[in-house]
């Protein structure tokens, strides 16, 4: 009652909005406005200065029929996602399992596996560019010692996307650390009860560890997919001219390229953003559907 007698600027109903004002402005500029603009401009040809020219579905037709680079961008992107996401998740889970229980030097191991994650991505990618260097890079030199023939990994169209994807394994520490904390929050009593029943390690893994970890795995799958679909630095730095044969022309590089390296390219780039957006939405939807069946939540018993 007393609160109502206060002037409005002293009431919580108003003050609350003042507190969340930064995010309200942020959401309008970075979420609502771009979404509306992207949908609109994706139907136009626009140079950024003059009035956009209405094309209808022209940009979408162009990307699937006229422009040879777009199907290749899609192909490269899906390959990249299909290699990196499962690879880092499985390897990350394996490392987390190995590093879960007490062991000599376990802290050192954890630190060393996490170390590459803290490096600036540009610095790490530049290092990998040196490793893949055809003449005196580490990889070809090591292969030479084993008597094997090296190759120009990043420019050879048959190996380029694989080489770019392989670098993601170096960042496996970020998956590892999250899985590790997931493993450590599993109630030890579950394993003790299984021991009493005489369950072996494999049974315990499939009947206890995986179900208990499923919410964490599910979350990492979604964030991993969203991140992999938006990979840009990897190809912008590793493969200087992803365009040369389009084998590493990832969708986000294509968007950047069309918007900022070409005249009148904003509309076409935004149509590609729409495609990226729709792909990510569909992926997320299916992962959520899938999760209803396979993800176990403790409080849903």
């Amino acid at each position, binding site marked *: 009652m007393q609160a109502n007698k206060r002037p409005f600027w002293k009431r919580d109903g108003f003050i609350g909005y003042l507190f969340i004002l930064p995010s309200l402005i*942020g959401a309008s500029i970075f979420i609502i406005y771009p979404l509306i603009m992207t949908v609109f401009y994706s139907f136009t040809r626009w140079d950024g200065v003059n009035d956009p020219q209405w094309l209808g579905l022209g940009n979408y037709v162009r990307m699937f029929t006229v422009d040879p680079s777009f199907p290749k961008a899609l192909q490269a992107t899906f390959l990249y996602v299909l290699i990196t996401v499962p690879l880092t998740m499985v390897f990350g889970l394996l490392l987390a399992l190995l590093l879960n229980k007490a062991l000599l030097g376990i802290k050192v191991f954890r630190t060393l596996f996490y170390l590459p994650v803290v490096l600036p991505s540009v610095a790490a990618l530049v290092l990998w560019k040196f490793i893949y260097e055809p003449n005196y890079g580490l990889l070809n030199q090591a292969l030479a010692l084993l008597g094997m023939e090296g190759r120009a990994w990043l420019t050879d169209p048959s190996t380029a996307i694989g080489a770019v994807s392989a670098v993601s394994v170096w960042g496996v520490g970020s998956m590892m650390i999250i899985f590790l904390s997931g493993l450590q929050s599993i109630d030890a009593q579950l394993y003790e009860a299984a021991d009493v029943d005489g369950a072996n390690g494999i049974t315990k893994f499939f009947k206890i560890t995986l179900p208990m970890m499923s919410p964490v795995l599910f979350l990492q799958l979604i964030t991993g997919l969203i991140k992999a679909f938006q990979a840009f630095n990897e190809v912008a730095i590793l493969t200087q001219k992803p365009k040369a044969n389009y084998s590493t022309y990832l969708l986000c590089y294509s968007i950047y390229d069309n*918007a900022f390296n070409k005249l009148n390219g904003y509309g076409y780039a*935004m149509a590609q953003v729409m495609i990226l957006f729709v792909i990510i939405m569909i992926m997320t939807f299916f992962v959520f559907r899938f999760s209803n069946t396979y993800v176990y*939540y403790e409080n849903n018993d």
Partner: protein
Amino acid sequence: MSTATVRPRSAKQKKLVWNILRFLLLLVIVVPMVFPLLWMITSALKSNSSVLAIPPEWIPREFHWENFSVGLSAIDFLPRFFNSLFITVMCIIGQVISCTLVGYGLARIRFPLRKFWFYFFVGGMMLPGMVGLIPVYRVWAGMGALNTYWPLIVPSFLGSPFYTFLIRQFFMGVPRSFDEAAKIDGAGHLRILFQVLVPVIKPAIVTIVIMQFQATWNEYLSPLLYLIDSDKWTLSLAVASYSSLYAVEWNKFMAADLIYMLPSLIIFFVCQKYFMQGLGSLTNTGIK
């Protein structure tokens, strides 16, 4: 009785064998993971000719420390270092202030549609960052802010959805009795927030500082779009542009790259606790 005395020993032996196997397996995996970094360090110390030597010199015969000074001046290190530092510090300040305010508002103040805005901001985390790229670029271009630091700094003052979510979850974990006492003493929201609650959620704020440091220090795409004059460049741009030159002197370049990595490495080793425990458990907070 006899089986009872034998079984624990065999279980112990089994565990020992398993631990030795685990150790060896980890050793086999960790070597190739760390090797690139070690190779980078030795390369940075090699002479021009030995960096190209085949077979490679794993340990350089003589240490060429001058690679560091030559490499650093090749990427014009010092001014770019201060550019990166300035942008990074401003972004950290922005995130800490804005996310604490919004997080408090969402956790502690009752106002209409509070739940809706909370879910709206959380939903914003799902939006691919690429969607904002071009429209936001055009906004800054329209304001004549290209080639300035504004487009890189201002967004940090508008609260990242993830950090806001994090802070809000931390505030929700603090018992209401903390603020009740201050409220009875007549403290307003700002005083409750900064004198009572902020000290309690210090770990969350430190985490944000570390994560935002990494995010800004590492950022490549937005400086690439917004910074045109090379005297405004960040270190990430300088390093990337040097790597695309035709003839790269890798030993000097690796020396410079190593220095660019150094602040991140120092922060990692100083704040290891936050990385190894904090960041991992973050994603588990409030998701169950």
